[in-house]
């Protein structure tokens, strides 16, 4: 155990950084470049604290605790330094929070608010980059980038793809692919991990723009419908529609990481092609109801009510069973459906039809 004092309070901790120990003891230190899923970087200088005996302020996110250390996380010097950094960041940041997709969900906005940075004392150049909408899914507004490198680190540490990096130096430095190409022309796999960790509106989900602010949406944690890995994510819902998928960092399977299908492949849910009403072959409808039925958008099919459709299904299956025996019926369960549904359909096959002709596309 290491004993140290933080803001005069004696704390015992087994080890770790000043930030970790502070957080564990309920002491909040502001951060921007830090992210729980990423290795600490010490870049943004927001978590600077005073460590007694140290000439300069030290970043809490990388500085390990040591015996007898005395730390001040909220001294006037520390707060002034943080305000200074925020003033600098604000001096090169668009002040368009009103229309920014990330308004209300922006870590920079929150800190600017908390530190009361009304105006920056620095007048000068700010970056002017065109909105980069050349790629699907990922919208890049590099004027809003604060160079925290979370995206670069996510691309490196989580996805091990390294599609993006910093290019240039000094004020001209910028997060980009090699040679500043489109993401499509790099080895980007469009997993969107970069978006999930971006603290500002620099990287956002292109298809979700204008669909709802963070406070207008609710989140429902669920399991991905694509491959067998079983990633969890949060569906963001507004007005009964999915508007976005965001990372859910608290599960052991994917720990917030997703692939292009998981993060961006949700639009099919609201496709106009979705089946919304039972359909019956026109002749079958006529056989059952004696009328022509309401035409559907699919040739040869009419729209049916559930009762008629279900009765027709039962009749069709029972006819085959009664005429040719239970094994004249075949049933396919689905690797897309839930356990409960698969359980029910095999029970239906075995109990109600009396056949083991039940299979699904496990092998395909």
């Amino acid at each position, binding site marked *: 155990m290491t004993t140290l004092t933080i803001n005069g309070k004696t704390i015992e901790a087994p080890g770790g950084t000043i930030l970790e120990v502070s957080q564990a003891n309920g002491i909040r230190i502001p951060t921007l470049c830090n992210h729980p899923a990423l290795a600490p970087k010490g870049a943004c200088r927001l978590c600077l604290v005073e460590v007694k005996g140290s000439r300069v302020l030290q970043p809490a996110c990388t500085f390990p605790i040591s015996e007898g250390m005395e730390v001040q996380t909220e001294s006037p010097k520390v707060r002034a330094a943080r305000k200074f950094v925020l003033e600098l960041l604000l001096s090169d940041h668009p002040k368009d929070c009103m229309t920014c997709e990330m308004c209300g969900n922006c870590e920079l906005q929150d800190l600017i608010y908390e530190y009361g940075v009304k105006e920056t004392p620095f007048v000068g150049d700010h970056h002017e980059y065109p909105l980069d909408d050349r790629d699907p899914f990922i919208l890049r507004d590099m004027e809003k980038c604060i160079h925290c490198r979370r995206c670069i680190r996510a691309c490196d540490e989580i996805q091990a793809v390294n599609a993006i990096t910093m290019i240039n130096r000094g004020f001209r430095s910028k997060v980009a692919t090699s040679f500043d190409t489109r993401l499509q022309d790099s080895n980007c796999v469009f997993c969107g991990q970069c978006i999930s960790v971006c603290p500002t509106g620099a990287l956002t989900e292109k298809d979700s723009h204008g669909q709802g602010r963070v406070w207008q949406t609710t989140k429902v944690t669920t399991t991905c419908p694509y491959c*067998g890995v079983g990633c969890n994510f949060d569906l963001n819902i507004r007005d009964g529609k999915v508007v976005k998928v965001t990372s859910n960092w608290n599960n052991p399977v994917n720990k917030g990481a997703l692939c*292009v299908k998981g993060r961006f492949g949700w639009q*099919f*849910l609201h496709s106009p092609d979705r089946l919304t009403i039972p359909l019956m072959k026109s002749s079958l409808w006529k056989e059952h109801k004696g009328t022509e039925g309401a035409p559907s958008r699919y040739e040869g099919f009419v729209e049916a009510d559930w009762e008629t459709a279900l009765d027709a299904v039962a009749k069709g299956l029972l006819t085959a*069973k009664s005429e040719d025996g239970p094994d004249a019926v075949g049933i396919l369960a689905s690797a*897309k459906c839930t*356990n409960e549904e698969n359980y*029910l359909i095999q029970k239906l096959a075995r109990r109600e039809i009396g056949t083991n002709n039940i299979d699904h596309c496990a092998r395909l």
Partner: protein
Amino acid sequence: MTNSIEDLAKAKAFLIIGSNTTEQHPIIGAGVKRAVRRGAKLIVADPRRIELARMSSLHLMQRPGSDIALLNGLCHVIIREGLYDKAFVADRTEGFEEMKAVVDKYTPAYVAEITGIPAEDIQAAARCYATSKPAAILYSMGITQHACGHATVMAIANLAMLCGNLGVEGGGVNPLRGQNNVQGACDMGGLPDVFPGYQKVADPILRAKMETAWGTPLSDKPGLTVVEMMNAAHTGKLKAMYIMGENPLVTDPDLNHVEEALKRLDFLVIQDIFFTETAALADVILPAAAFAEKDGTFSNTERRVQLVRKAVEPPGEAKPDWQIISAIAGRLAGDKGSWEYDSSAAIMAEAAAITPQYAGISHKRLENGGIQWPCPSADHPGTKILHLGKFSRGLGKFMAVESIPPAELPDAEYPLTLTTGRRLQHYHSGSMTHRVAGLNTLLPEERMEIHPADAEPLGLADGDMALIASRRGQVTARVQRTDRIKPGVVFMTFHFPETAVNLLTIAMLDPVAKIPEYKATAVRVTRVRS
């Protein structure tokens, strides 16, 4: 998977065979990449130079369908050089001598001849796998979608047992399941020979248990698999089908045959979220809810049962599949009340009561996170690693297997081998992913991968259209010349119904697993003049 996804981080070496992990299971693929960057060794066995091959210590480019020879060759080298885990073999396995006798003839030189892999690479791979512990084997459909798939899985298990890599963290035999709930569909008895929990229908004791639970006598005769059902429909033995959430008219092998079979049915019910290619042949189409529109559970490739939560209402009159099934079953039973469930959770409660692996699982428990089966009781934490200390059958049995060539080998008429697979941006028959604009931007159409050495004499340039023909059908597709693929082999996916690659594939089944041989079809490629 015998092990867990989290576990992979602890592997010192990986043997990845028949799995393009970064495209098919991207999250696991990224985990492998991270482990390799931290220093784990990586051996990739694949006829294509997949992304992981670029960071592998060894890439073995085997001929499609020669995996057993390769795996036996690895065992041969490991035994010959005394690199196997003698204590594990002695204490936990049986049948070593028999297996040894079979792999004896699989010398690196002999295996090189069958697989096309240089003998020294086979030796190096064997040494690497045997001397890095724990080592994990990852495989996928590249192994199983062969007429010899079942035998190949045996050969994989032999290799893992030989090196004591079962029942250890960071080791294991890890099949990666292709679909979100293919594991759960199997667990729940969506298979012709077993009840939920892999309880054999032919076993009188187990059957009696189920008969008691369901209150009715049950058939003891194992049923037909998908491909067998299509054959039975074709011959007129099968009269009616009820298909939920599947699109066999794109995904099944030998599509011309499938189409004919489905057309010959007296009655076909399709229950789906879209009007699929198969739906066009249906008598009744029932609109179902998608994953975000219902409650339930999926079981992932590491046996983790996880909640699926309803977030939005289904469109129009669409209903969750479980409600539709209940309504149909109630009608079939002539007693709607006997099939009424008030929630998905209630169904799980019933299923868990008769499925030993799921006995301790309930929706309530899953609220706090997924549970990996087997979970025999409500206080059991679930099982991260199978075969810890003991195999389910007691001793692990080495099953000696001989190399079996693919059913259809290339010949003068059909000189190339087509192997099929998937790509990152699309999914299966594409009914979901083709309705996501950005995914279509990223990958708008099928591209057949062909090695320049094969393309050149055919006069095929990058971007040309080619006609690919097999003994069963033909498709046209755009050509992508690439040295990612082994000469003599061409690669296509089944994501694009307009380029229905399964018109070409052969419905040759593995005798045990009944999996079709998607990974090796003899084809002929010609240029299409525009």
